[in-house]
């Protein structure tokens, strides 16, 4: 054990603090401190258990596996009890009854309930009661890592509505005058504390502590302070306070993950299509934009050389992930709000244009001066000589490194998961997190990537071979017979 007699025992708890208000989040007034109603609740629980609470910041998507790896002892993060989680971890008794709230733009009168969201896109948190409900209802949704991103995209009209647990909605959406709740809160779900399987002793301790802070009114005080006290909590807490054990058997059905392989493969196929679209689109941008960059940097006047060099160094010297985040979240500030897939397409295109320009430049510089002089001495101007004589030769030199870049571009589309684009990497992460099928889904996703990159590599090899054969072929006499 990690405690010695006399020392106070520690309760290490894990949660995702990024965009985590009002559960647990960074204190805006003091960035070194975490605050939130669950933070205060865990402190109260720990006190009731005679322990000291220690917070371990973690990532929502991987909370369960982090718990199993013993990164912390309990999950306290608005965790809902679901059937698939029940197979992996233990649950405490519930401590909070949550509801879901649909949010739309203030000027939007089309959507008043979930039923109005058919054929529209709803933003939500991945792998939650909300996302599963949408799944079950067959409503298209887009997963976000936190409510902040979803509500911002709702404002920017990238999505039509957002569905979140009331605590998050109350904190992030209510104060925003450009957004409004659509309809009343609905469904009743429970938040529980997650524990490792076999940790029955700690579960008994936690359950007792929950009873204690409910009975003595500590939890009520905390919830009231955070504006989360409502009728559902009164109905939930009253039987406990009067000494009656409430029903602890949790209804999983509404929040059960609905994973099946057919559905998963269909979603992976759609994700692959998005990946191909992004890859091909950004390729076109890179190939087309790379050329003026290369020529500008190579033969342009001084100011253009500086500009092109700056462009290249900027896009090569900063991470593509940061560039995408900037395009996605930064550009809307000046009124340019592109949807995620287009942002990824443009961002990767701009990024790879920098790399392609360097491939072009090296290839163009590899063409001997004699080729230019031969073209000039035949009366060609610089533009004609470049287009007809230099460029085709440079293209042959550039082809192998370009192929290389484009195979890696296919794989780089995976950074689009950072801006919630449903491409292969996002699909893998979310489907695997929801189902635990990391291995099989991983193989399936790899197969998709290979199915895209191998044909491309093959095609490029064929083209290279054709160009090479041409340069050295020895045509038979009959073929060479002149028509004259």
């Amino acid at each position, binding site marked *: 054990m990690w405690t010695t007699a006399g020392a106070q025992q520690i309760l290490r708890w894990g949660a995702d603090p990024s965009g985590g208000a009002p559960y647990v989040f960074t204190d805006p007034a003091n960035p070194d401190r975490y605050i939130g109603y669950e933070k205060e609740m865990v402190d109260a629980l720990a006190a009731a258990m005679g322990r000291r609470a220690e917070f371990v910041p973690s990532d929502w998507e991987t909370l369960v596996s982090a718990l199993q790896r013993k990164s912390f002892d309990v999950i306290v993060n608005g965790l809902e009890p679901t059937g698939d989680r029940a197979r992996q971890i233990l649950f405490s008794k519930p401590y909070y009854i949550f509801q879901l709230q649909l949010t739309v733009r203030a000027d939007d009168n089309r959507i008043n309930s979930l039923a109005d969201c058919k054929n529209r896109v709803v933003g939500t948190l991945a792998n939650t009661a909300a996302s599963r409900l949408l799944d079950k209802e067959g409503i298209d949704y887009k997963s976000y890592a936190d409510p902040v991103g979803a509500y911002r995209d709702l404002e920017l009209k990238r999505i039509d509505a957002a569905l979140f647990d009331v605590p998050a909605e109350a904190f992030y959406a209510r104060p925003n005058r450009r957004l409004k709740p659509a309809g009343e809160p609905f469904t009743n779900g429970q938040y529980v504390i997650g524990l490792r399987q076999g940790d029955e002793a700690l579960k008994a301790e936690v359950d007792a502590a929950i009873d204690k802070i409910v009975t003595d009114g500590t939890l009520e005080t905390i919830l009231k302070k955070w504006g989360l006290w409502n009728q559902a909590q009164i109905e939930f807490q009253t039987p406990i306070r009067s000494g009656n054990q409430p029903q602890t058997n949790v209804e999983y059905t509404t929040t059960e993950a609905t994973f099946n392989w057919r559905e998963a493969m269909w979603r992976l196929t759609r994700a692959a299509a998005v990946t191909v679209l992004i890859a091909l689109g950004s390729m076109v941008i890179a190939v087309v934009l790379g050329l003026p960059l290369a020529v500008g940097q190579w033969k342009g006047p001084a100011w253009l050389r500086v500009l092109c060099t700056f462009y290249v160094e900027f896009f090569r010297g900063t991470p593509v992930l940061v560039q995408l985040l900037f395009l996605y979240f930064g550009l809307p500030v000046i009124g340019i709000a592109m949807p995620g897939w287009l942002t990824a397409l443009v961002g990767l295109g701009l990024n790879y244009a920098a790399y392609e320009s360097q491939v072009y430049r090296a290839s163009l510089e590899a063409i001997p001066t*004699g080729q230019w002089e*031969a073209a000039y001495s035949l009366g060609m101007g610089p533009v004609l000589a470049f287009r007809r004589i230099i460029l085709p030769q440079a293209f042959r030199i550039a082809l192998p490194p370009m192929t290389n870049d484009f195979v890696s571009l296919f794989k780089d589309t995976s950074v689009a998961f950072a801006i919630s684009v449903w491409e292969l990497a996002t699909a893998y992460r979310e489907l695997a997190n929801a189902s635990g099928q990391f291995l099989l889904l991983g193989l399936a996703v790899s197969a998709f990537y290979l199915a895209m990159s191998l044909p491309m590599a093959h095609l490029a090899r064929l083209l290279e071979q054709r160009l090479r054969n041409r340069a050295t072929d020895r045509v038979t006499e009959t073929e060479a017979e002149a028509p004259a």
Partner: protein
Amino acid sequence: MIRGMIRVKGLRKHFGDAHILKGIDFEVAPKTVLGVIGASGSGKSTLLRCLNGLETIDGGTIECGDVRLEAGISHADYRKRVRDLRLKVGTVFQHFYLFPHLSVLGNIIEAPVHVLHTPRKTAETEAFELLESVGLKVAARRYPGSLSGGEQQRVAIARALAMHPALLLLDEPTSALDPRRVNSLRALLRTFVDRGHTMIIISHSMGFLGGVADEILFMDGGVVVEHGPTEQVLNSPQDTRTKEFLEQAE
């Protein structure tokens, strides 16, 4: 008096402080071959690059037909005249510089089609005639990479002639050829002269020039030392510098 096909007057060229051409004067009459000789560094390669406009001239004039290139005119005007000059002057480079991505036929019709806008069919017919005259008709569809040095040179000659230049420049045409090939090149060039072409040939090979050139021009230190009929310059040179050069060249 016959007007020269090309007339060079007071031609100067310097790279920084290095004065390479210090006032060159000569003319080449139509249908004649001028051989240019001189030691390495005498300026003969620079002279050739000035004649086809690859170097900007710093003084004097180059006249070819109705084109007159002179130093000191506006940049735009100069560029236009250089383009015109290049249409009058064809060049066969020492290393040929064929376009490796184009077939032999493609190399020859490239400039006629895209610069002169000759219809492709016409250009091809003409190209086959030229290829026949250099003995390479069967190679029309081959690519330069599969040709020998001598074959590449003949393609380069055909490519230059396809533009109907008033003057053909050849830079060290014998440097890549064995003696047998030198003889056939000499014969080939003579047939073109007989058809009315005018040429300037830069060469180190006195034997080769003796058989093909009508006149010889000897350059040294950026000036013309001696210019006269081939017989006279090679056999009884007037200037001591010419004598010394020829003795060393033997």
